[in-house]
């Protein structure tokens, strides 16, 4: 095992919220398959500006999948502002640590979520 914590392994083996939201309110895509990791986050935002649903698709190593899963869980039910405050470090901490060499390249979940929220906000402001 690449020295993954039990929590990482759990989220990798049983990832939460995998998938796509057909009529997503926002979509965020980060990373690049060339580098090894790519994540797409889909969000659904309710009237209170809360994340009523979060889903993801991830191409990447075990850590990348676990990170995506953890971020989706952490974000669900949060307000957009709260969700935007989720940092890479928060995610790593919730996962009980990531191997040092995976901290940077695979820990893109918070970024992808942020992109999805900004996508939603852009669309909304355009829609206005």
């Amino acid at each position, binding site marked *: *095992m*690449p020295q993954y914590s039990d929590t990482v392994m759990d989220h990798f083996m049983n990832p939460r919220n995998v998938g796509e939201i057909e009529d997503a309110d926002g979509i965020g895509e980060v990373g690049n398959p060339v580098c*090894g990791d790519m994540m797409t986050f889909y969000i659904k935002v309710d009237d209170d500006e809360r994340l009523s649903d979060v889903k993801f698709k991830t*191409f*990447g*190593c075990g850590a990348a999948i676990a990170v995506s899963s953890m971020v989706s869980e952490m974000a669900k039910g949060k307000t957009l502002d709260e969700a935007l405050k989720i940092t890479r470090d928060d995610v790593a901490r919730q996962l009980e640590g990531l191997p040092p060499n995976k901290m940077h390249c695979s820990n893109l979940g918070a970024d992808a979520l942020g992109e999805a929220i900004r996508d939603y906000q852009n669309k909304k402001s355009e829609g206005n």
Partner: protein
Amino acid sequence: MRKVYLDHYAATPVLPEVMGEMLPFMESDFGNPSSIHSWGDKPREALEAARIRVAGLIGAPPEEIIFTSGGTEANNLAVKGISWAARKKGNHVIISSVEHFSVLHAASTLEKFGFEVTRIEVDKHGTINPDSVADAVRDNTVLISVMTANGEIGTIQPINEIARVSAEKKIPFHTDAVAAAGYIPININEIGVDALSLASDMIYGPKGAGALWVRRGIRIMPLFDGGTQEGGRRSGTENVPGLVGMGKAAELASLNMKERVSRLENLRDLLIERLPAAIPHIRLTGHPDNRLPWNASFAVEFIEGEGMLLLLDNTGVAVSSGSACTSRALKGSHVLTACEIPPEIAQGSLLFSFGIDNSVEDVNYVVEVLPPIIERLRQMSPLYDKFVKEGGK
């Protein structure tokens, strides 16, 4: 749970017969082969017997074998040692772009010291063209180093032809046979090579043992100075048990080569036939025919190697991958890149390396457990998503 070890490229177990010959040299016959008193006798004799056996695997004179701590040391000694010793003659070295890191990075170190290195490109099967070696030769070329076969993709190189080029141009030719020796017949005189690297742990010998054969007359600068063991070309107290083990492993590899190879080839061919039938969007990497008997390497599209490895491990199957995530440097395989496999596809690389204890049942098991794993990861993959949405062209 069924355990299916298919990562013999990463490590092989030490055979019981090999262990059996090693143990006395740790316990009762623990002496130093350099000792003049009788405690030195058995270790010295065993070391020389091991030298004969290792030499036998490649048809070399035993006194031309330099024992090392492994394949990496052998390659560094060859590439740096031969180049340094010839630095008054020239400072140009030719290698292939698919060499093992121990040759590739040794050559890069030479560059830091004023050498020039030509890295010969390969075709999409990873095969080097002997003509490009001939074209790369310059007046100041002091070494050509091209591996006998690549472990990652299995491709066997035309080293006989490259040796002919080197002979014509009178340039020493080293070949890294770590992945090949014991699995394809190698005779240094038939090839016409000048130096050749071996590792014990590819042939069911212990880790920590290897050898470099260097033809008499080829000058080489040692990496280790010291008590002038190994004719002064590799000082340091000899790892007697390890080298005795390597000797036995080499002997067994010679004796059983035919049988081992046909067994390995059957399993390899079975997997190469059945996996693409069970899994769409998977491609064989390396040469379709001219490949190591134990090697079945693939690239699985739309997903990344580490995830497959972990899920396979969860079903009891051990394999490896050349994906960036599975590498220490987090870089995709330079070998797959050299074969011009697009990087996102190279990320899905899977290497099955068969061993002498594998069976048809092992292949069946892999063909059973791998497709759902791949399907599962593809369902998570945004790349697969796109592919499907774009109509799966």
